[in-house]
């Protein structure tokens, strides 16, 4: 009843109207976008009517019987998907870039599939041969893309689960799921005679299960300690004062810069802060820092409490007449742990009203002066 051309334009009309309704409901000042979407719906509706009326321009197709032996063409979903993609592109232009790109991907994919399907169905009168021809053209594209999308969904879903459950539960889930994958994979390998439908069924059921768990976990949100760490600016690492974030990175010493050679090592031991410069075999309370050059120091905590090293690096004007201190600091460092801190001081010490210093917040009377020539 519906010709391929009319399917595309009817789909375009329907989705344009649906997006238009959503757009008017969700977006302020939607007049311009709504007019554009309605125009597309109206235009595509007219073209869909014309396509139906003249049978896509092939008048004889509907009026005459098919020749003997001719096979009926298979139905196609690609016109529908292409219309969804087209609407996504238009909707994305007036809403969000992500909608635009998803629409574009759908439009290009559906267009390619539609094109190749139409071409292959005209290759011969043998339906099986035409299908194999299509497969040769599109399977090298379809399989990797579908595998990538499938794996992406599984990984994303699994990660949502791991972020939602507690650390201990996460470890247990990881062990159980890993063992299950190994066990089922071993069965599949050892029993090649298993029914194909059974294997496919188990894989699909597992994938659906993981995806459903992921959706449920994502709707439940992050576990409490991650929410708290986020509130404490753990990820942007903004604490340079005495306040103590509960969820700091206990393995901060694994940073890459630890492997590069630092210009000095700052040590906190028995409540005293001392420095030892590279190549100089004595402790000091002053280090010389290269001017206008990124350099690294190591903070080593040998004290009996957690501590952080904070570098005062002068001031900067944030707006006319308003000056704020420039600070840089390590994470809160656990006992017997250490972390590298890399920073740059552009101006010599003489340019700063207060000396550049390294201090431990909360520890009075202890500081290392940074001299910048």
């Amino acid at each position: 009843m519906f010709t391929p051309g009319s399917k595309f334009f009817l789909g375009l009309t329907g989705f344009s109207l649906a997006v238009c309704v959503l757009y008017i409901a969700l977006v302020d000042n939607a007049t311009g976008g709504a007019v554009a979407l309605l125009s597309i719906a109206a235009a595509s509706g007219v073209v869909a009517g014309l396509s139906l009326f003249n049978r896509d321009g092939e008048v004889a197709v509907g009026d005459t019987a098919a020749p003997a032996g001719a096979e009926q063409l298979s139905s196609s979903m690609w016109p529908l998907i292409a219309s969804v993609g087209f609407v996504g592109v238009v909707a994305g232009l007036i809403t969000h870039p992500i909608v635009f790109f998803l629409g574009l991907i759908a439009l290009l994919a559906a267009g390619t599939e539609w094109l190749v399907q139409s071409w292959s169905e005209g290759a011969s009168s043998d339906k099986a041969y035409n299908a194999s021809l299509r497969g040769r053209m599109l399977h090298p594209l379809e399989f990797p893309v579908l595998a990538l999308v499938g794996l992406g969904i599984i990984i994303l879903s699994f990660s949502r689960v791991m972020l939602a459950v507690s650390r201990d539960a996460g470890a247990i889930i990881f062990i159980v799921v890993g063992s299950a994958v190994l066990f089922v994979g071993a069965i599949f390998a050892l029993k090649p005679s298993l029914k194909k439908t059974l294997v496919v069924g188990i894989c699909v059921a597992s994938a659906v299960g993981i995806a459903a768990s992921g959706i449920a976990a994502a709707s439940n949100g992050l576990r409490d300690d991650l929410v708290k760490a986020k509130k404490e600016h753990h990820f942007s690492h903004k604490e340079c004062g005495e306040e103590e974030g509960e969820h700091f990175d206990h393995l901060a010493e694994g940073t890459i810069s630890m492997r590069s050679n630092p210009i000095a090592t700052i040590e906190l031991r028995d409540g005293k802060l001392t420095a030892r410069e590279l190549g100089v075999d004595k402790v000091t309370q002053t280090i010389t820092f290269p001017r206008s050059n990124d350099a690294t120091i190591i903070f080593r905590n040998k004290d009996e409490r957690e501590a952080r090293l904070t570098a005062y690096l002068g001031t900067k004007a944030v707006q006319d007449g308003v000056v704020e201190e420039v600070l840089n600091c390590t994470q809160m460092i656990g006992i017997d742990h250490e972390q590298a801190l890399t920073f740059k001081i552009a101006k010599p010490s003489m340019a700063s009203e207060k000396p550049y210093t390294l201090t431990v917040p909360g520890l009075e009377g202890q500081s290392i002066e940074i001299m910048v020539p």
Partner: protein
Amino acid sequence: MSAKTRRIVAGVSGLAATSFLASCAKDAPQDTWQPKGTNAKIIDDLQQPVFAIAGVIGVIVFCAVVYCIIKFRDRGQAMPEQTHGKPALEIGMTILPALILAGVGVFTFRTVFDLSKTSDTQMVVNVTGQQWWWEYDYPAQPELGITAPIITSGQMVIPVGTKVLLRETSRDVIHSYWIPALNGKRDAVPGRVHTLRLDADKPGIYAGQCTEFCGLSHANMRMETIALSKEDFAAWVANQLADAKSPAENTLAKEGEAVFLNQCVRCHQVNGLKKADGTPAIAAPDENVWSGAAPNLTHLMSRNTFGGASWDLLNKKCRADVWGASSETVGKKYLAGVSEECLNQTDLRRWLRNAPAMKPMYADPTQLSSTNGKYRGMPNLGLSEDDIDKLVAYLSTLK
């Protein structure tokens, strides 16, 4: 001997004589065969025997090849009997080079470990490379009289007989520090600090050259290490710790100070220089130069080169007097700095007139989009001749 053979012998003899005479250069300040410091001597002690062994082997191989070429040349004789393999000879010719290399390797490793020793360091200097000059900053070391950090460029001054540890790094690309008379090379790498030990036996001026290709003016990135007696070094330190003095009022130098404040202080620091309102003038090379630094000029005339140590601040006569001085007198002559009579005004004026014309640098304002408008090197400031006169007068006061 045929005419042809005579021509060949004459040609080869001429080439050999030229090569031999080339090794007799008197003015060769970067000669690797004349060590003047402990570490350079350690290297020399290795390279002399290795060079001798390699030379002997080279001569033997060369003679064998020449002998075979002449002895077995084609004279229409019958093909000699062909043999396949001489196990004893082949094994011997494998084992002998392996033994020689193993022997060289043992001594090389020992030398490498000797050179890396830093535990008995007596003085530290931070060395920073950037396109295309070297900066030296001396951390405070009261036991050496350095009560506050000192910063200079182009020429590094060290006390004689003192084990100096260089902590090398770079602000932009990889450079390599090499004073052949005092030690081997060591790369200066951004984000890393590499150490290199130097010491000099006698007072003198030891020349070097950046040995890692670092861009447009790599060839113009030179440096010198000046070794002074301990007394002379103390005098040098005392001078470097002092701030620059402002020139007397109503002089050309005072007008030059105003030009400097207007033009040069954007990048170049002169310690002690004050703005018209009496506040210290602080340079902002970080806002104008890609590497974020420009040479500190507080004591420009206490060193005798400029522009990455590639041009002399001393005129030819005075330069010859300082560089040709004996180890007993070089300290005093160096500490005298650049007097008005000795100033190489020609090159200094050329530099102020258009520095990129003397030393290729990335200083075209229309081509700086990749560096966010920042220069690599000194731009042409478009100074008038009048301003150049004033600036030369002012710079001459920076002793």
